[in-house]
């Protein structure tokens, strides 16, 4: 298990790290960024599909968090992850809003770039094609459902944390997540008629290198 739900000792650890970072301990801050940086990055990357943009958003998120922690505006109450990912979601929403505004104004060049990228991706290896298929299915989700899916899988948050973050009842959240996964499955099956496609997607990558290579081919 790469990342699980935060336990109590984990919260205590985060609290002490935040206090040390607020007092000027650089090593504590590095530890925080290393612990959460890739999760925030994955969340941004899933939506933006651009390493540079995702990294920029990640940095922006941690700059904001550092400013709040350093100035004492944030007081740790065991909800650091919710707060961190709320900041991240707001940054990603702002970015998506800007992108959509650009697309709505008829930026033909951007549309052509996206179309070319999708075309190139379809000509890549089988694994890359499957990832492209999964991403296309996620594009078909509504923004709200997609946020739940990404916070759960890319952000690694528990449903309870997502419930706190989005300020929605837990039951509603679970139902929406279940519905979103079903919709994803239906979309993928409609795009690829092979019966084994879901099991192939669920089998995952054989190693992190192949995952890395598969992703970079899409970026």
């Amino acid at each position: 298990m790469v990342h699980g739900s935060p336990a109590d000792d984990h919260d205590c650890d985060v609290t002490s790290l935040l206090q040390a970072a607020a007092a000027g301990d650089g090593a504590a801050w590095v530890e925080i960024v290393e612990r959460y940086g890739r999760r925030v990055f994955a969340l941004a990357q899933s939506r933006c599909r651009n390493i540079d943009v995702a990294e920029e958003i990640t940095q922006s998120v941690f700059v904001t968090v550092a400013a709040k922690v350093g100035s004492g505006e944030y007081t740790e109450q065991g909800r650091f992850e919710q707060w961190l990912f709320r900041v991240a979601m707001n940054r990603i929403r702002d970015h998506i809003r800007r992108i959509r505004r650009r697309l709505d104004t008829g930026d033909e060049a951007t549309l052509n770039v996206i179309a070319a990228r999708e075309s190139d991706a379809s000509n890549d290896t089988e694994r890359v094609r499957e990832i492209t298929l999964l991403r296309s299915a996620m594009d078909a989700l509504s923004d709200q459902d997609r946020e739940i899916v990404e916070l759960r899988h890319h952000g690694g948050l528990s449903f309870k944390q997502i419930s706190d973050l989005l300020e929605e009842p837990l039951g509603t959240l679970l139902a929406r997540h279940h519905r979103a996964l079903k919709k994803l499955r239906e979309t993928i099956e409609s795009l690829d008629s092979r019966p084994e496609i879901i099991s192939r997607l669920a089998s995952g990558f054989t190693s992190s290198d192949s995952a890395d290579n598969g992703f970079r081919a899409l970026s």
Partner: protein
Amino acid sequence: MNNTSHTNHNHDPLLPDAFNDPLVASMARALDTLALADRAAARPDMAQRIALASMPKVHSDMQASAQTQAQTQAQTTAPAPISFVHNSYPLPRTPLAQRAWFALAAMVVLVVSAALVSITISPSTSTTQLADNTPNSTDSNPTTPRLADSTRADPTRARENQLATVAASPEVESWLSVATEMDAMWSVGLADISASATDLEERAQTTFAADQWISETSIDNDAI
């Protein structure tokens, strides 16, 4: 369960039993795979770079007191504003360097003035000192002339004494030599100018005579 899953859907205590649909769970594992790929896409040094770029700035009491101390020190070192009791408009401040130059120039003027005054007064002072000599001291040295009495009695002689004292200094001698040279140059220049003036006068007279002859000739021709 697949090892790549990091959300552990089948054992999440928050998930209801109905959620453990095997088809939906496989979809969730596929999303976990995608999330792992996205995490792996981050550059290896990303966390270090972001951590350095976003390091929290400490706002402690020590920093605040240090800032206050620095402000106080800056106010102490700054020159006090110039203002008058009856004037609400403060005088314009001059830069510190400019004021230093003014002070230096004033000191130079004072020193030069003092030197000039001392040079001017020194002969009379010496005569005064001589005049203050008691008759006994003069009597003790019969060869010493009684200059005080003589200068008081004869202002012309006192002036000559002053001139002699001034002329005795080497600087005055050098200035006198320069003045003599300039006098000689002026004499030569004046001689040249006078010669030129004489020459011009002679030429003018000659020209006038020629013009008169031409005019007389033309009159004669007209008469013819």
